């Protein structure tokens, strides 16, 4: 069994508590307008369009396939910008053992592994197998950073084999969720309840998008929902930034600071110190 990996970030200080290995899996089941790493959405179709944009010869077109030579890559992002289907020619395949071996040399520097994406639960069989291996061989923890859109039976298995889930609920109102992601959120909310009931909810996350999910009444509903869940997880509020965004939201302005501060105050009135702020000029990629 192999995982399709877009990239591994080691160490990451923004993908869960402590220092972690963040593994971004390729492929997603939502289509968010504000996706911050669109290159993780789809699988490469080997159209070859990106090859000509590579200045260092890291990409070659051979017998109908795009071949990637990591050693020559200078990470200029030209190929990612050229891709018309929101994918990347740099996807690598890892077995569970292969991925573990890539992480083991750095064991002393990290608290655990976080799978992100894309949508990591799309590759749930790999995650479950990797979780077993990781827990058998190391003391590292495994967190899943997910949009929560997965069959509830699979979610139950993921809960059992991971140490926690960080769930990105993108809007509380189902209609607004659909506007933003093209999917409804009822099953996601059910899954969040499932995870929280198992005491595995490590973080709930909301990216504030002006006019899409930040209406006062909706925010209040979101915070009340979070407060109703068991567990001591924190709710991270992130102001939208256009950094890395492709498509119609690419030119949208960063979320206004006054509105962000107001949302934080509202959140704190309900969730107290369980609201996690980010430094305002936060530019990290979030999906």
């Amino acid at each position: 069994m192999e995982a399709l990996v877009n990239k591994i970030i080691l160490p990451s200080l923004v993908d869960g508590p402590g220092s972690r290995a963040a593994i971004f899996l390729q492929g997603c089941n939502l289509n968010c307008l504000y996706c911050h790493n669109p290159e993780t959405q789809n699988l490469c179709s080997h159209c070859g369009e990106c090859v000509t944009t590579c200045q260092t010869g890291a990409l070659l077109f051979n017998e109908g396939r795009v071949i990637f030579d990591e050693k020559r890559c200078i990470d200029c992002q030209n190929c990612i910008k050229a891709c018309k289907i929101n994918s990347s020619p740099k996807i690598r395949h890892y077995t569970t053992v292969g991925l573990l071996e890539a992480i083991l040399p750095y064991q002393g520097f990290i608290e655990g592994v976080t799978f992100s994406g894309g949508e990591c639960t799309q590759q749930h069989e790999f995650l479950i197998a990797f979780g077993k291996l990781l827990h058998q061989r190391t003391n590292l923890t495994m967190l899943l950073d997910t949009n929560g859109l997965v069959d509830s039976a699979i979610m139950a298995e993921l809960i059992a084999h991971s140490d926690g889930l960080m769930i990105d609920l993108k809007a509380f109102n189902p209609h607004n969720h659909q506007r933003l992601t093209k999917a409804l959120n009822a099953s996601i909310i059910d899954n969040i309840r499932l995870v929280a009931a198992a005491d595995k909810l490590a973080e709930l996350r909301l990216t504030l998008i002006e006019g899409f999910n930040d209406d006062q009444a909706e925010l209040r509903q979101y915070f009340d929902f979070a407060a109703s869940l068991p567990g001591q997880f924190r709710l991270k509020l992130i102001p939208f930034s256009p950094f890395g965004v492709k498509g119609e939201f690419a030119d949208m302005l960063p979320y206004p600071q006054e509105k962000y501060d107001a949302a934080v105050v509202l959140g704190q009135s309900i969730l107290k110190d369980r609201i996690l702020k980010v430094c305002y000029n936060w530019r990290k990629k979030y999906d």
Partner: protein
Amino acid sequence: MTNKTEQKIEGIINSTRLQYHEKRAALSREAEDQLSYVRISQRVAEAMKAGILHDMNEGHRPYRPRYILPDYHKFLLQGSAYLNLEPPKDFYEAVNALMILYRYVPSITGYPVYVGQIDDCLEPFADTVTDDERDKLLRLLLTHIDRTLPSAFVHMNIGPKDTKVGRLVIKLERELRNTIPNLSLKYDPDITPDDFAKYAIDSVLDTIKPYFVNHRLMSGQLGEDYGVVSCYNTLRIGGGAHTLCRINLKEIAKISENYLDFKQNKLKEAVSALAELTNAKTTYLVEESKYFESSFLATEGLIDLKKFTTMPAVYGLYECVEILSGEKMGHTDRASDMAEEIVKLFHQYIKSEPAVYCDGTGGRHGVHAQSNIDTDVDITPGVRIKYGEEPGVLDHIRLSSRLHKYFDTGCSDIYVFEETAKENLDGMLQIIKGAIKNDIRILSVNCDSTEFLRITGYLVKKKDMERYFRGESLREDSVVLGAESLYPGHLLDRKVKSLDGSLDGSISK
């Protein structure tokens, strides 16, 4: 006196850029260099001329050790007959006594490079004053150091224990935002509480201070009584270093026929010349200028010749490996293996050379990775990776960990993080613990968003360098050194380790 010398001296006297005390220092240096060089053999002179061996411009006739670490703790216990000081009885008197003694501690820069293990010195007096008084007094001490010892090589130590004084120093330095003193935290995960370490990390990401020093590694090699001075030199308290001379590994690689010739012949010859120069200067200092017989620091037992050593050093390992292997250390196993082999060989060669007055490191020379001076061009400090060529931060640390252990008198690397690290102190602590566990000797974590910049080992403010380039007269001589070394050394190209470990930014110019 030749015409040229006269012109030079007149130039100093009539300069409008130098302050009085700087003129005095420059004039005394001119006087010293009127004398011939300490006695060295022809081959040493030739190695110096060829750029293989470098004497760090220490002057022709050493008359004070390069680095001195007075035992300030002992001084506070016994007072001083020479200074007519009784042992202090409270925090006020202790701070005053230290201010007085600093004035009398020479070094190669003219300023003390070590102002003490300040928590050990002052913690015993901590409860003789109120919290507010302690805050005020320490603030005055730190301000006094910054204003009267304006050299970023002035270095203060704290840790590994969590103390009132240690915490207060970190807090005040963040408030005062001075580059001086340089600050090191001796860190041992078994002794230093996580809470105190995170307090220090929070400061590091704001002001670059303090350094994290691997206390277990250091005390295992030099004993518990070591100090970190000047840039990041590690020496014994009550001791110091007579001299620091260095060999240029890049130049040695250039004259070698191949790697074998480098290892078996050229490096060995250079090390032998390095040892001879080091011994010649040390012998002159001890036996001719008789520093240890004349200084009251020695006669009152605040320093002891037996705790001194020398610091023969290397620099330019990165270019050396590049020339000999065609590959970049930190990027290929072959280059990294070669880097370690060269360092190990240097250690072995220099430790087997004759050494005089090196009891501070067991009768053998101390071994040092020198971090460059302002005139170095196109050569990487010590055993570091060239700026801009650093691999991901963890791979960088893992390579450093193979090299640091060979340098008992100091070696350090700088890792730059993005501002977002401030949001995750637990994660930063984890990385630092990993580095310490991997035998990193001294670790500087910098944050790209601060107004400070660490130039090889000391700190400067970015805006002070701009002032220097505008021709303003500045208090800190280290700003001048920093500004002059900035462009040749390509420091601003140093890669920012973004939190995702990728290399996608540099310090803005």
